[in-house]
């Protein structure tokens, strides 16, 4: 990268209120390290306790979703593993938490359906659904609880979940990138 472009990149991140950005391979160790760093950054940004907790909770659910559900990375020559992008930005009132990861086209209908159903819920419905899902998942030994993760994000967000698939519709037999956003 030319230094001038890096300069633009840094300026653009600052202008967009980026507090934290990670893009790359995720595993348990990476998540523990970036979690500790994120807490420190939130403290530096003057986030209050409740905000900081919600940002951290959402960020971790997004990271776990990438770990468990993302399609393996889309670069032919890249390392194997789960590639994901995670971002926290400062807004006037609070924070936004975003993630992006690959999905294979056969995952898209189920994920889209879950996202749309959580997006349409009123806050008290989110909480009801969370309780229901907690009881039913506890019975089901194989579930990794994606539903519960999305409901946890929705419960922490002041606005409905926002999401975009790119490309949409996904290329046949290909991958698409899912972007997801919550507002704290």
């Amino acid at each position, binding site marked *: 990268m030319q230094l001038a472009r890096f300069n633009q990149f840094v300026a653009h991140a600052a202008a967009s209120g980026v507090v934290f950005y990670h893009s790359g391979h995720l*595993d*348990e160790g990476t*998540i*523990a390290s970036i*979690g*500790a760093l994120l807490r420190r950054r939130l403290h530096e940004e003057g986030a*209050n*306790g*409740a905000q900081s*907790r919600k940002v*951290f*909770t959402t960020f*971790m*659910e997004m990271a*776990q979703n990438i*770990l468990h559900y993302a399609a393996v990375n889309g670069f032919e020559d890249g390392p194997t593993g789960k590639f994901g992008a995670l971002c926290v930005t400062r807004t006037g009132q609070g924070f936004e938490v975003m993630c992006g990861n690959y999905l294979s086209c056969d995952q898209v209908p189920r994920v889209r359906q879950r996202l749309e159903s959580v997006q349409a819920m009123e806050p008290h419905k989110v*909480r009801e659904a969370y*309780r229901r899902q*907690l*009881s039913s*998942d*506890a019975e089901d*030994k194989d579930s*990794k*609880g994606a539903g*519960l*993760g999305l*409901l*946890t994000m929705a*419960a*922490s967000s002041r606005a409905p979940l926002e999401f975009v698939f790119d490309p949409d519709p996904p290329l046949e037999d290909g991958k698409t990138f899912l972007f997801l956003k919550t507002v704290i």
Partner: protein
Amino acid sequence: MENFHLPPTSLTPEVSLNPAQGLLSMRGESYPEHVLTFYAPILEKIKHVLDAGKLNLLKVDMHITYYNSASAKAFHRIFHLLNHAAENGCAVQLFWHFDEEDDMARDLGKDIREDFPAIQVVGVEMAAAV
């Protein structure tokens, strides 16, 4: 029966089970990658102690300062075991500690009280850690 103890890590809580004194405690954070792998042996130990049927009282101390959604499921399974034991003659007191600003943990405490009526749940609100 032997004591069971796991030291805390940055991703998992400290877990102590002392059958002779009827004490179970879990403290710290809970977000391992493989939640079920972490909690399966703990569930097994608790089940073993409860199945022996020698306890009249089990005091459970839980203060999990952060838990992910998969850990919430594991807790639910532990509460199932405790509720079952409580229905069968072992009084179970659960001291559910939560930080004052932690709405999800506060709500989970209420849910436990409703969903597992045999357990005596005592909510303990803690001043937020800095």
